């Protein structure tokens, strides 16, 4: 057999060996938790409160205790990417699963009130007490359509009208001689 024919075969074997080793190493460190997050099946608009459903599955052979699962939200607006504080978006962002037996799946619902328009990504992170690294669900991307919350046709008449009304009242008081007499002062005869 010529050397030129052997070279590609040797290379292929080496690659296969490397992949096998990498798979074995990866399998040894593979997380025992699988986390998924589902996109709500609706068009999302500003002010809506969609529910994101997350599942946590124990892929290992031992029960998992004290698994903490929490939601992370990030703004994906081009040029303005940043993590979003969930304080006003979601009332409950972390869930603790006391015990998750092997092969079992725990399902939870995260309601999130959409208070800002734009592109966002949300992911669920699970941390098991015995896991070496947290497990993160695939990023769920969603777009919140803008909806003007404030209607200038309602706001402007009030904003302009009320001070004008009070000014008119002030003018009327001035015109009529304004003021009141001191009720404790006895008028002289």
């Amino acid at each position, binding site marked *: 057999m010529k050397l030129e024919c052997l070279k590609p075969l040797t290379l292929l074997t080496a690659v296969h060996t490397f992949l096998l080793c990498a798979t074995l190493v990866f399998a040894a460190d593979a997380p025992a938790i699988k986390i998924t997050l589902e996109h709500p099946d609706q068009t999302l608009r500003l002010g809506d409160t969609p529910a994101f459903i997350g599942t946590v599955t124990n892929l290992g052979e031992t029960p998992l205790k004290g698994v903490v699962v929490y939601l992370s939200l990030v703004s994906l607006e081009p040029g303005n990417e940043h993590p979003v504080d969930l304080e006003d978006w979601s009332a409950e962002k972390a869930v603790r699963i006391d015990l998750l037996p092997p092969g079992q799946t725990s399902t939870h619902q995260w309601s999130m009130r959409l208070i800002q328009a734009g592109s966002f990504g949300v992911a669920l992170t699970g941390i098991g007490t015995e896991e070496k690294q947290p497990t993160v669900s695939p990023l769920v991307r969603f777009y919140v359509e803008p909806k003007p919350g404030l209607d200038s046709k309602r706001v402007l008449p009030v904003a302009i009208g*009320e001070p004008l009304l009070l000014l008119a009242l002030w003018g009327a008081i001035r015109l009529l001689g304004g003021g009141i007499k001191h009720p404790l002062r006895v008028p002289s005869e």
Partner: protein
Amino acid sequence: MNSVIPLIKKETLEDFLTARGVFSLIVASVVLSAFSILLVSNIELSLLDNAQAVYLMVSIILALASLVAIIQGSDGFAGERDRATLETLMLTPMTGQGLAAAKLIAMLFSWLILFVLCIPYLWAVGSTGQNLWAAVEYLSLMGTLLVLIFGGLALTLSAKVKSFRGVLSIGLTVFLFSGSPVLLGPALRQSAVGQMIDLINPFADALNTLDSVVIDSQGISFQVIRLTIMICYALGVLWVLYTATKRVEL
């Protein structure tokens, strides 16, 4: 009691019928108008959820109500003393406590007028959103408690400190201190110390209650602790005012 009623009438009517009283209402109205126009003219602010806009508006209203109460409370005794009219008032059968009660009722009436003026603004920014009526209900309660706390405190100081300016500067300093944790932002307020400061601060309690009711749609059970603290403050201030005005010095 008979001598207190005319004073209550005079003080309350002054807020509505005199040029000075109407002018102060116009100023409050212009502040609210400017803020609501800012909300609709700014693209980012106009996209705010209605509940967020209502919350921002009620925060401004509470700050205005507290400021007005401090100014009126400072003027209560010290202003009369500066204008040399306190002696005349004390010559009537009215006691210092009766005078304080009349001034306090007048403050509450001023708050009532401001509250009525605010309702159209709240309707304008929040009628299509959630929790508008809850916001109005809690605003009336929080505003009344804050007026009793800050106005009563200023009135107590006014009975003891000789000059109006002195009382006003102390009152405004206290108000700025109570508002400063709110200005620190949510990150610092989430720490244990920040939460404690928030809890003992009546102004922060009022804002956090409205945040909880208007934005998070939480019920009365979430507000009990903050409401209890505010009521305790109000009762404490009223008791201090009662004892401080037993004898008013000219």
